[in-house]
């Protein structure tokens, strides 16, 4: 990314930050939402802990609360990667600001990526809050969460590959929004499947045997398992190589495919004159 593009990307972030803080109570509501969600997981994990004991991944130390916390964190990033591009593009279309941006001497892909950047940063902030609040909550239990920093490298690598994969799908969804004016179906499908089958809230081992193969088709399954093993038990890259390899294949296919579909949709929308229509 050139310095000029970085400055433009920052302008998007700053603009969206100003809009966000213009809603005076938004921050308090977000903070309240995080604390409420973590509290909810904390409360229910206490109930479910015993029932899921057998299928819990031993590598997470049998702590369901930690399991959920480190499932939700990557899941949140997957969600934003899947939805931010299409959602922001649609929002700018509907509010009427898209045309004003597209007549500026800035490349259209940068406009789309820049528009979504704040969502990624805000999600980072939210995820950090989840983890911090979760660690504080866990201090009041018999099994406090302890992070293993030696696995941070593997976790970051796994995480990056998952984001690249999801961004590829998210860009495809944005391309659908741009060309067909609808793109939610693909995202909703993956999102719902990931939440249910991706080992976010409960171990995939708890699923019926006939369903378990489907979870292996989802990038989030490898991510949640890999991130937990890295951060909660300290496994490194060599131990998590199979996860990394699968995610690398997902990213290597889906990211270029997403970019290709996006370019085609952009060309088609400009040809059809529907770029700013919704």
């Amino acid at each position, binding site marked *: 990314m050139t310095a000029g593009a970085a400055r433009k990307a920052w302008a998007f972030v700053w*603009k969206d930050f100003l809009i966000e803080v213009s809603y005076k109570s938004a921050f308090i509501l977000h903070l309240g939402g995080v604390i409420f969600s973590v509290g909810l997981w904390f409360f229910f994990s206490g109930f479910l802990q015993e029932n899921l004991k057998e299928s819990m991944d031993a590598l997470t130390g049998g702590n369901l609360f930690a399991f959920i916390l480190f499932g939700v964190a990557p899941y949140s990033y997957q969600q934003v990667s899947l939805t931010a591009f299409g959602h922001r593009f649609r929002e700018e279309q509907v509010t009427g600001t898209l045309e004003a941006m597209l*007549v500026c*001497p800035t490349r259209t892909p940068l406009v789309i990526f820049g528009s979504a950047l704040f969502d990624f940063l805000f999600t980072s902030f939210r995820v950090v809050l989840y983890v911090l609040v979760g660690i504080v909550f866990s201090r009041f239990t018999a099994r406090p969460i302890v992070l293993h920093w030696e696995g941070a490298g593997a976790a970051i690598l796994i995480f990056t590959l998952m984001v690249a994969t999801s961004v590829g799908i998210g860009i495809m969804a944005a391309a659908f929004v741009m060309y067909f004016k609808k793109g939610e179906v693909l995202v909703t499908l993956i999102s719902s499947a990931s939440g249910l089958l991706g080992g976010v809230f409960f171990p995939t081992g708890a699923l019926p045997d006939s369903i378990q193969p489907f979870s292996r088709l989802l990038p989030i399954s490898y991510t949640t398992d890999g991130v937990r093993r890295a951060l909660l038990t300290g496994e490194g890259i060599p131990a998590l190589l199979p996860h990394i390899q699968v995610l690398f294949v997902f990213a290597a296919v889906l990211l270029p495919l997403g970019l290709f579909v996006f370019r085609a949709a952009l060309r088609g929308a400009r040809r*059809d*004159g529907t770029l700013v229509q919704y």
Partner: protein
Amino acid sequence: MPDAVTVEDLGKTFIKRRSLRDMLTRPWVPAERVTALDEVSFTVAPGEIFGLLGPNGAGKTTLLKVLACLVIQSRGRALVHGHDTRHAELRVKSSIGFVTSDERSFYWRLSGRENLHFFARLCNLQAGRVKDRCQDLLERLELTDKADHPFMNYSSGMKQRMAVARALLHDPPVLCMDEPTRSLDPVAAKHLRALIQGRLNRGEGKTILLATHNLAEAEELCSRIAILHRGRLRRLGTLAEARSWALARERYVLEVSGLNGAVAAEELDGGRVTVDRGAGDGLVTVRAELEPGGPALTRLIDGLRARGALIVSCSRHEASLQEIFDLTVGGPEGTA
């Protein structure tokens, strides 16, 4: 110096998307095609205010969108300051400022200044210049008083001036204005027209491409006009030339007193005359349509005087742009 805008044989055909049901039940029926622009050619000289006129659906906005690289043409080419819209998108966008009448094209929760700062970055202004440039434009467009207020609180006139300010951020030589006074009251519209003509065109030498169906506005501002109708360029020229399109015959209105008898047809060289004897004040209004450049007016006056008439006044009627427009597009909204 290249022309500010060159449009050569420009064509745009939209293919209407078919519904899924239609595609499944009648796959052999080709998709409907709509021609928005067809063989449109003209040039705009640097420093000119060029009016793009036409009824709704004439193709004005499509043409402006091609120039702003929002739509790719099907045929022909369009150049802005010598840069091709198809192959040099960023250079074209650097040379053009787009003024839309859509108030929703700003972030309403941000202030005018914050909006301008954001768009200034997209227009490649260096960080150090953004603040000064925005302040300068806010001052020039008389927006400083409310610069730090939320955009949602601005009046329509201020919103439109903000649109002009945004289009000027990167100081482009060409401004495309799509019905800039559409939502303004007469006072705000007059203010904006004065700004366009006085400061932007005469003061800064900007080339202005003005799409409008406000004919009085075009008449006041534009040195040349193009009339588009159903995607085709019907007329192109100066206002004086435009009047000559409308007036195959010259029109005169004479007020006379003491007229006895009718005016004979042979005195008019094939022209037409109507006589309105008025409300009994002794003044008679004579309206004549005569062959231009001939002796018909002299003959008419001689004929009137021979019948005892005293010529009180004689004026030549200039065709309004409305008449020219109606003649070109065939009646109101081009429906005739």
